[in-house]
């Protein structure tokens, strides 16, 4: 077989996860749960200064404390710390309590130095510098095509606005961390990770040992959303502690740590201008923006990039475009890839501009999108979505909803690359007819283990329960990190190829022209002494890239309390070949719900005076709860001929844009800053004083003037940090 079968038994149908029973009984062992014999508890001492020169760290008293078996420094010698929470040292001991006590015995000599944690403050000429030899606002990127001035001159309608988006924290429920067992022969790492191979390479590099001497295992992991692609500082520290103690060390971060040091989605500040002809054809677009990826983009992660740039004018092609983007550093933890890096941010401002333009031109907002969207699938999605949502009946002039509680509707679109890449898999057919499939991928919650079983069952003509799936181990054939919505599109073709090859081999060995179905047992009996082991790999033609998606939102806004309630979300998602309908839907629910958090609730708050994160827990950093979840109606666009694409990220992108547009439609006033909290709603309605003072606005204008004056590199395309 060289193509996905037309008629399927399992692909595209709904199948419960094969590891569901392990997860609902507590039997599933995450890195946090592994307990090798003699394991020690590990913990990290973090900087309590937002910026300081560290002159010495004395571990002697901690090392001598009861139960403590090892203590290591994060870095030798004098050093600088650049954010509250930066790693200083780590210790391991026989109990959590002993380690917590001993952490207090570590003596740190430090000279605090001036720091800055607010983006606007960091753009002032006299702001403390994050890096002595650098600038807080560095070089900018510019992309230009056509002639913007001419484009605007020819426009019948022009809209302008400023937008702000917040720093969002990943907050995967299993914190970052590892259980590491160091022996001179091999380092075994049980990692909570999105990439077993990238953790292996990171640990090998850090410890200066061959990659073949590091084994990384990840049977289950409790969420990552882009932040768990490398071993992190905590992985390196756990390994060194294990080496020093001669025992396995579990070093899992605390919930507090998760707010400080393991990534976030950068903030942005944007000034946007959009022009169109009277019939709604987009003619000109201009953007100036800067954003904050923390003290430095990327950080100690293999995720790379994740600066504060984003794709603009996002999904639209506009003949005259000028975009200039920069980043500003502050004394805070570094950003990392976060579910569709750059895209929700880009979608929020661009879709807002589209709605405001539609209002100005007197064109229906959905019509304006269909007119200008360059992607046929997404245009189709708008047509399907508006029918399902009841757009024509529901869409009213902005602010025309009567009463105290106002109702509004909005929509937005998304794009994402997805697609597959180099993954290998191996199939072992045993004489008893049972099958093992091995692949060094990992399941980040999307149901990867089940995907492997379904593809194998489909090709080999077996039931999924006959397939034992082994994943999450660097001893298996290599696969990439689970980033960029590429896992399903990478592993499905590799497993398809391996199983197709295995079936051919089995037919050759057994002499049966079709070894499937009734012939299976007889064919397997002819295998001989050793099981049949056959390899396969990802190849072109079975997966595809480029997924479009659109979402519609209906909201209620209480104009007395400022509280936004979502009545309904309709999500239309381009899926290519759907592998497992059930888990595909779950991912879309999840993307929408995380988008609700981005739209209405989430945002890291830094304290100007102390440099600490003020909301490092779930009481004060609000995640969407069950009560916040509206009815979510999902439409999956099935296009099996395109192959597998990946949906995890695209389904998250347009939610915030659609909600923000619905709020603007309800109120007749636009909230241009995320999250849309009640105070911003009331301020926009003039019921409480504006959240920004005149001084704040002056600072913002100065910051934009600074960005305008910055030297810039010209780029062809912005790198939205797709990993």
């Amino acid at each position, binding site marked *: 077989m060289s193509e996905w079968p037309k008629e399927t038994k399992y692909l595209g149908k709904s199948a419960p996860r094969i590891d569901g029973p392990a997860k609902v009984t507590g039997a599933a062992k995450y890195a946090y749960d592994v307990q090798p014999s003699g394991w020690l508890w590990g913990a990290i001492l973090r900087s309590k200064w937002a910026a300081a020169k560290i002159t010495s760290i004395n571990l002697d008293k901690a090392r001598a404390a009861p139960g403590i078996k090892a203590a290591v420094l994060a870095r030798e010698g004098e050093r600088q710390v650049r954010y509250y929470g930066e790693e200083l040292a780590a210790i391991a001991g026989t109990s959590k309590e002993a380690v917590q006590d001993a952490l207090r015995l570590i003596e740190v000599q430090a000279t605090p130095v001036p720091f800055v944690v607010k983006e606007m403050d960091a753009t002032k000429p006299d702001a403390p510098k994050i890096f002595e030899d650098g600038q807080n606002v560095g070089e900018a990127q510019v992309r230009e095509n056509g002639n913007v001035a001419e484009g605007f001159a020819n426009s019948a309608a022009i809209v302008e606005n400023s937008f702000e988006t917040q720093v969002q924290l990943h907050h995967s429920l299993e914190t970052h961390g590892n259980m590491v067992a160091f022996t001179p022969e091999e380092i075994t790492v049980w990692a909570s990770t999105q990439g077993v191979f990238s953790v292996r390479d990171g640990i090998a590099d850090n410890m200066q040992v061959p990659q073949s001497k590091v084994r990384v295992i990840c049977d289950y992991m409790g969420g990552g959303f882009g932040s768990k692609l490398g071993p992190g500082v905590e992985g390196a520290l756990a390994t060194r502690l294990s080496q020093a103690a001669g025992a396995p060390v579990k070093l899992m971060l605390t919930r507090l740590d998760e707010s400080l040091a393991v990534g976030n989605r950068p903030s942005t500040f944007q000034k946007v201008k959009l022009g169109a002809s009277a019939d709604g054809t987009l003619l000109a677009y201009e953007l100036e923006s800067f954003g904050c990826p923390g003290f430095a983009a990327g950080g100690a992660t293999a995720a790379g990039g994740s600066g504060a740039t984003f794709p603009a004018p996002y999904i639209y092609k506009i003949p005259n475009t000028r975009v200039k983007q920069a980043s500003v550093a502050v004394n805070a933890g570094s950003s990392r890839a976060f579910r569709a890096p750059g895209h929700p941010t880009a979608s929020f401002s661009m879709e807002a501009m589209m709605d405001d333009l539609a209002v100005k031109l007197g064109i229906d907002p959905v019509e304006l999108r269909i007119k200008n969207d360059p992607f046929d699938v997404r245009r189709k999605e708008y047509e399907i979505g508006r029918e399902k949502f009841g757009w024509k009946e529901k869409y009213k002039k902005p602010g025309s909803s009567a009463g105290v509680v106002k109702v509004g509707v909005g929509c937005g679109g998304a794009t994402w690359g997805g697609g597959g890449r180099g993954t290998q898999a191996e199939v072992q057919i045993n004489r008893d007819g049972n099958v093992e499939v091995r692949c060094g991928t990992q399941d980040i*919650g999307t149901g990867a283990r089940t995907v492997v079983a379904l593809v194998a069952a489909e090709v080999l003509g077996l039931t999924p329960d006959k397939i034992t799936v082994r994943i999450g181990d660097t001893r298996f054939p290599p696969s990439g990190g689970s980033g960029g919505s590429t896992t399903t599109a990478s592993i499905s073709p590799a497993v398809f190829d391996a199983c197709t090859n295995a079936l051919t081999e089995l037919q050759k060995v057994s002499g049966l022209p079709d070894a499937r179905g009734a012939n299976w047992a007889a064919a397997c009996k002819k295998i001989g002494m050793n099981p049949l082991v056959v390899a396969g790999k990802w190849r072109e033609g079975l997966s595809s890239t480029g997924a479009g998606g659109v979402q519609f939102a209906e909201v209620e806004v209480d104009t007395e309390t400022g509280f936004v309630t979502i009545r309904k979300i309709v999500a239309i998602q381009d899926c290519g070949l759907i592998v497992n309908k059930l888990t595909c839907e779950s991912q879309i629910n999840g993307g929408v719900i995380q988008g609700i958090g981005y739209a209405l609730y989430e945002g890291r708050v830094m304290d100007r005076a102390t440099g600490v994160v003020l909301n490092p827990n779930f009481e004060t950093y609000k995640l969407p709860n069950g009560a916040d979840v509206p009815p979510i109606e999902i439409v999956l666009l099935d296009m099996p001929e395109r192959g597998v694409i990946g949906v995890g990220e695209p389904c998250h992108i347009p939610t915030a844009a659609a909600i923000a547009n619905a709020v603007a439609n309800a109120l007749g006033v636009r909230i241009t800053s995320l999250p849309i909290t009640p105070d911003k709603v009331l301020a926009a309605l003039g019921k409480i004083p504006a959240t920004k003072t005149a001084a704040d606005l002056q600072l913002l204008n100065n910051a934009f003037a600074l960005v305008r004056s910055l030297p810039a590199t010209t780029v062809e395309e912005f790198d939205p940090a797709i990993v």
Partner: protein
Amino acid sequence: MSESSDAPDGHEKGGLSRRTFLKALGTTAVASAAAQATSIAQELQKHNDERVYGPGPAPISLKINGATKKFEVEPRVTLLDLLRNRTDLTGTKEVCDRATCGACTVWLDGTPVYSCMTLAIEAQRREITTIEGLSKGGELTAVQKAFVNCDGLQCGFCTPGFVMSVTALLKEKPKPTEEEVRKACSGNLCRCGTYPRVFAAALEAAGVKTASKVEVIRIDRGTKAPPTYV
């Protein structure tokens, strides 16, 4: 604020000073509160004279999933830490460690509690049930089966907590409404966003029918090629 001189170093205080607070409370209330506090302190003293735990490890005995086990733990050790670090019952998860997420939910005498906010010594003489104690002989419970069938989980880290909350609800209310399910799960957080499926699973386990809101539409673009611009 006139009471700002209360601050010994002359700095202005932002909030209520102690004096303002006492004034506002009224002298009678203060007197009676003080008397009450004294009597509570006396009671505590009397109680502690009888039995003092800590600060070092103390022997305790806990009944977990029907089996009684002995431990030596410091009084500050939470039930969550005891389960996770001193037994192999790691199905109970640590996520926030401060009573906000519900991943550590266990039952004490059949009632769901946050084990991160329960000291291990407090759980003596109580029936402790963890996620591992629900299914007997490897057979999944109706709730567990429904979670698997409805895909009421993604990464699975919050799942044990949700299963404990939903199971406890169905013992009390065998036929709950979706509103009641949402309320029973209001102390559980999920970051993957699995809530709709958790609610569906709870209703399925209770035998209440739910309709899927998902539709699949077959589209033929007439080409296999990826879009040139997306």
